């Protein structure tokens, strides 16, 4: 068992017992001020009853099926457990108090049912408030724990996203090429570095703005493809087609980037002969169709890679968040003889 629950740590029992003892002492002081009488007697009764009920509750719950999250019984079990713990604890505690004072509280019932009932109501009220205290405290702790877990999950997802966007393999290979170019062709090296800078800036700040112009999206894709061009040489041909009237269209940033990366990574890179990537935008009735097409290895070869699905899932999720059901992403085998893969994003115009 991992100690994820604050309730299960080893100091749990003494700590709860001490809190109950403190509560009971306050109750005893309150009662002796309100009612007068022997404060020591009040103290013994309050402590005996308080601790007995607590013991019946805290140990009694172990007899029930516990909710793994809270470590308490749930539903009717909780009610049965709590009611019986109060009754049994009250009887035991009262008996202990009676032993101390040498009298019998239960005798009181015969003499004055009213006085006895008021004792009982008082005990139940006190027990209820203590139980409520522990329950809400546990709930708060649980909420904090869940919050911490949620935050951890979120930052893990973000890290994974960043890693997939930056693609260390691509980055280091690009740097390796850059290192070579610096020695043999400084002008080309500078141009490559400029593309890398633009690519990195776009990737790192991509999530900060909700939309940018389609022309900006195409410029980022061009940076990425130019980097790949240096690496792959004539194994990579690229074609970007953006009609002038769509240049200003607002799209979520880097929505096409994962599709182009997939086309390279799973389509062209594994393909010995390389191939062509075409990115195009066109208007079709009331929709805009954005297409990333490659002439690479095709779906069957790349479909098993986990990376593909992660990238596609990210694009799908983003489209769904922004456009709901109005946007789609489809991945199909290219229809013509050249083969390869066709990724199509459709968004409302």
């Amino acid at each position, binding site marked *: 068992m991992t100690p994820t629950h604050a309730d299960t740590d080893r100091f749990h029992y003494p700590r709860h017992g001490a809190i109950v003892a403190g509560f009971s002492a306050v109750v005893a002081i309150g009662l002796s001020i309100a009612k007068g009488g022997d404060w020591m007697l009040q103290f013994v009764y309050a402590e005996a009853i308080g601790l007995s009920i607590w013991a019946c509750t805290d140990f009694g719950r172990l007899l029930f099926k516990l909710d793994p999250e809270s470590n308490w019984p749930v539903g009717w079990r909780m009610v049965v457990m709590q009611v019986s713990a109060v009754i049994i604890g009250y009887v035991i505690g009262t008996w202990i108090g009676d032993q101390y004072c040498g009298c019998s509280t239960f005798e009181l019932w015969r003499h004055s049912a009213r006085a006895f009932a008021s004792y009982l109501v008082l005990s139940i009220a006190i027990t209820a408030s203590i139980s409520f205290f522990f329950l809400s405290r546990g709930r708060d702790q649980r909420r904090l724990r869940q919050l911490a877990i949620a935050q951890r999950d979120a930052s893990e997802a973000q890290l994974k996203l960043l890693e997939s966007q930056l693609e260390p393999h691509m980055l*280091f290979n690009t740097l*390796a*090429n850059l290192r070579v170019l610096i020695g043999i062709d400084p002008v080309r090296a500078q141009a490559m570095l400029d593309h890398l800078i633009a690519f990195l800036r776009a990737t790192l700040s991509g999530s900060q703005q909700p939309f940018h112009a389609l022309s900006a999206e195409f410029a980022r894709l061009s940076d990425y493809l130019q980097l790949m061009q240096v690496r792959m*040489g004539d*194994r990579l041909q690229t074609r970007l087609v953006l009609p002038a009237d769509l240049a200003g269209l607002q799209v979520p940033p880097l929505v096409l980037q994962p599709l182009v990366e997939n086309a390279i990574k799973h389509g062209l*890179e594994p393909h010995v002969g390389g191939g062509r990537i075409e990115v195009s935008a066109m208007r079709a009735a009331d929709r805009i169709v954005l297409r990333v097409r490659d002439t690479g290895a095709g779906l069957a070869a790349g479909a098993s890679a986990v990376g593909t699905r992660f990238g596609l899932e990210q694009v799908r999720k983003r489209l769904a968040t922004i456009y709901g059901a109005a946007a789609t992403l489809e991945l199909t085998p290219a229809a013509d003889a050249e083969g390869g893969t066709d990724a199509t994003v459709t968004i409302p115009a």
Partner: protein
Amino acid sequence: MNATALIAEDEALLAAELKAQLAKLWPGLHVVATVGHGAAALESALRLRPQILFLDIRMPGMSGLEAAQAIAEDWPDGIRAPLIVFVTAYDQYAVEAFGHAAVDYLLKPIDPARLAQTCARAQAALAARADGASAIAPQWDAALGQLRSLLAAPALTGTRQTPAAPRLQVIQAGVGHAIHLVPVDSVIYFEAADKYVRVVTAEREHLIRIALRELLPQLDEQRFWQIHRGTVVRADAIATAQRDEAGKLTLSLRGRPERLTVSRLYAHLFRAM
């Protein structure tokens, strides 16, 4: 010291740079071929038999690791095994596996000091071979052990299956318009045939459209043994393992007349108890 080497790297600039750096660090090293993909690496290595192979891991077609496996299996007997140096830009799993396997590897961008170290190691290894009177056969042993442990690292073989890949019970093979259900237990062996796998039972054989490396994680490795990069055989269908004078190991089967060849990479599976 004079030696021969092969460079397999799909990015032309990086291949040229590695060659130039090697020329500076090791003038006696003759690069006999520079190739751009795994299949070409296999073909050139077997034809030219260089002493050192620099293999990029991620290459089109066949990966550097697959090429290394094929080279190890098909390398002719009687010729000293090549030294293999893997080159990779970023593969966190690969680097881990290399560490365990103690195979030499280079990270891109290649640090010249690190490359000098690799050259020194290779020279020492070649020198030890030259003056050692040791037999040729044991030369493979260390390299094979290293390769085996690299191939056992799932992240490296490109399958990227989750560790708990479900075990296959029945093979569904298409025959015309019908699907034949072949219980895995009745399969005697699987054999890779290009993009297909031949599924051979005692009665007949089927072709299924899956790569052998994708099928492998779905088979119980206790029951199905890989004996060659292209062959997986059900262990209890093996009748005998016979070694000929040249040391080549072949299996005879229960229920099939043909004999299967065990590659040197998997020969360690067959030892008398």
